[in-house]
């Protein structure tokens, strides 16, 4: 009886352990599922707010407009139908609130019961009109022509140059500025962090004595432990004003500020991993070099660094990954302008910062909400790619060094 109980316990525990072991896998699967379910949803939606239509005069040859065109029309960047391929005629914009310019309150009615007819008549009488109004105000015998609006396309999403998801009447969902902003800031960060990080890892693994190393190591760990929001706060009160006065800028919240803060934050990753790699250089290899009359420094750059180059690369790539995914610090110091950056002294906006800044205001399940999840998908794929690359590098390395 006792052995049976014991056996049962063993099996039970093994099952419990296995279950726990699969939690991470399950989580990743769930993350992918939820992220992509919402994210892909954006491509089933039209960029025009739900429940709204865009209509033109029946004789207007145009049947279809892209969201960018609609936006340019309403921003009055396109003012003539000719540009869109219709006969020359200047465009008359119509929004719902404009109706009182054309009709009296009596005609519209107290509860807007006359509104559908007014709009119908208006679109019929003005050949060059474009009207944006709620779907519920379409008259049964609507005389105008509803424009077809394409669903959001993946290619437009990825290559679009404007991110303005709350724009009326058509949301602009181009992630290019965000992707570029993210890469821009991360690249700057790694350019700052790599020389410092490499120097520190060489110093700690090859030059400093054990005592200094034992002091430095926990300090680097501490650097990794400081919360990102504290880094962001520090950046906000020290680095941002510093940049503003140094470069005499209107605002100090810039890509450069983001790069500096992210660079500091990426340091521990770079240092830990490349120091590890360098310390793994076989002692015999270093001794062989020294025994040939090479100086310590020659041994470092001719033997130790080449030997550990893949570890160093892995550290750098993971550092970039850390920078790309970082949210709060960037959100607090980069100024968050969703435009394609032209210099490091301009405000930029990264993907994580966009999600953090906008998700709170995006209605659940709506176009904007789903677009932010799509951003999350992009971020997920980028970091996954980075992780797999690092894995590949270190595996290949193991294989090579036998």
């Amino acid at each position: 009886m006792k052995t049976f109980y014991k056996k049962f316990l063993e099996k039970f525990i093994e099952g419990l352990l296995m279950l726990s072991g699969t939690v991470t896998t399950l989580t990743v699967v769930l993350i992918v599922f939820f992220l992509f379910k919402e994210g892909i949803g954006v491509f089933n939606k039209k960029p025009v707010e739900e429940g709204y239509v865009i209509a033109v005069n029946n004789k207007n040859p145009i049947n279809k407009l892209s969201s960018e065109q609609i936006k340019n029309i309403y921003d009055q960047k396109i003012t003539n139908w000719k540009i869109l391929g219709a006969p020359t005629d200047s465009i008359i914009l119509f929004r719902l609130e404009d109706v009182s310019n054309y009709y009296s309150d009596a005609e519209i009615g107290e509860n807007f019961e006359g509104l559908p007819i007014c709009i119908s008549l208006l679109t019929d009488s003005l050949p060059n009109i474009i009207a944006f109004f709620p779907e519920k105000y379409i008259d049964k015998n609507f005389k105008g022509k509803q424009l077809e609006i394409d669903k959001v396309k993946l290619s437009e999403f990825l290559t679009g140059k404007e991110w303005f998801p709350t724009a009326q009447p058509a949301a602009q969902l181009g992630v290019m500025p965000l992707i570029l902003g993210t890469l821009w800031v991360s690249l700057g960060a790694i350019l700052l962090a790599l020389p410092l990080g490499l120097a520190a890892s060489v110093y700690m693994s090859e030059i400093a004595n054990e005592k200094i190393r034992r002091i430095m190591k926990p300090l680097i760990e501490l650097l990794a432990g400081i919360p990102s929001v504290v880094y962001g706060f520090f950046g906000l009160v020290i680095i941002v004003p510093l940049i503003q006065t140094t470069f005499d800028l209107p605002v100090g919240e810039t890509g450069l500020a983001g790069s500096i803060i992210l660079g500091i934050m990426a340091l521990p990753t770079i240092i830990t991993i490349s120091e590890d790699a360098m310390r793994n250089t076989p002692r015999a290899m270093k001794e062989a070099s020294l025994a040939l009359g090479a100086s310590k420094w020659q041994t470092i750059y001719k033997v130790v660094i080449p030997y550990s180059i893949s570890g160093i690369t892995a550290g750098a790539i993971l550092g970039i990954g850390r920078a790309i995914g970082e949210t709060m610090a960037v959100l607090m110091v980069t100024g968050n302008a969703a435009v394609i950056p032209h210099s490091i002294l301009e405000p930029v906006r990264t993907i994580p910062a966009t999600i953090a800044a906008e998700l709170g205001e995006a209605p659940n399940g709506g176009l904007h909400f789903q677009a932010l999840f799509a951003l999350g998908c992009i971020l997920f794929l980028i970091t996954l790619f980075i992780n797999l690359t690092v894995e590949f590098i270190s595996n290949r390395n193991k294989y090579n060094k036998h």
Partner: protein
Amino acid sequence: MMMLDENKLAKRKKLRQSIAFGILSTLSYSIIAILFIILSFIIYKGIGVINWNFISQMPEEGMTKGGIYPAIIGTLYLVGGSILFAFPIGVLAAIYMNEYVKDGIFKKIIKQMTNNLAGIPSIVFGLFGMSLFVNKLGFGDSILAGSLTLGLLALPVVIRTTEEALKAVDNTFRQASIGLGASKWETTSKIVLPIAFPNIITGLILSIGRVSGETAPILFTVAAYFLPKLPTSIFDQAMALPYHLYVISTSGTNIEESRPIAYGTALVLIIIVLIANLLANGLRKYFGNKVKMN
């Protein structure tokens, strides 16, 4: 012999080495300097703000006055909740990975997935937590949803540190125990875990430090801008220190007036991290020496 004049060559090599080492050590110490600048700046600005009232009182007057009591309590709840979730699962998963599962495709997949999970940016955890815990499971913005989200984030950290702790246990202990007729679980629970325990706890402390400072995952799962009262159940929203710091330093109505509060909050966060790191290092040293003495 075409070799250069011996002395000249030696001098040149020495000079180059001195220059290189000079640059390397300067750069290394500049990193330490950066750390000290950040720490001392926040300590200098925040130390005057922190007193008993600051940590025991509610915020007042649009968070420009008063204390950060509810944020501290909220963070305590979140850290407690997430660790309660992540620690047991993480330790069990690590035991499974290190002691039970055999090398093969299954282990490879789990390992890879744990690595992947560790690499996912915290904001993506936030998105996921919002859509699963807040929306799908209907927890709403709550301590429960926030704790679970943070717990998932901490999971790979716990697993990794526990695995390292288990790996450090010499194999002869296991063989001796098995050899005496102990079962696998008996060996694991009575021999391996007690030996690995200090290192597992060190990992736990470090992940507490990490979780307490995370902001992005709680933005949309629990964090409240301002609550006049403390949470009463796990389905309540809560304030939290890192979010509080973010809010009052960027989007408050009175950013200038609430600056002192921000410095104080930042200092509290730093203190938590410092304590966690010191404790972890202390434990490591203490138990490290103890093992050596045996």
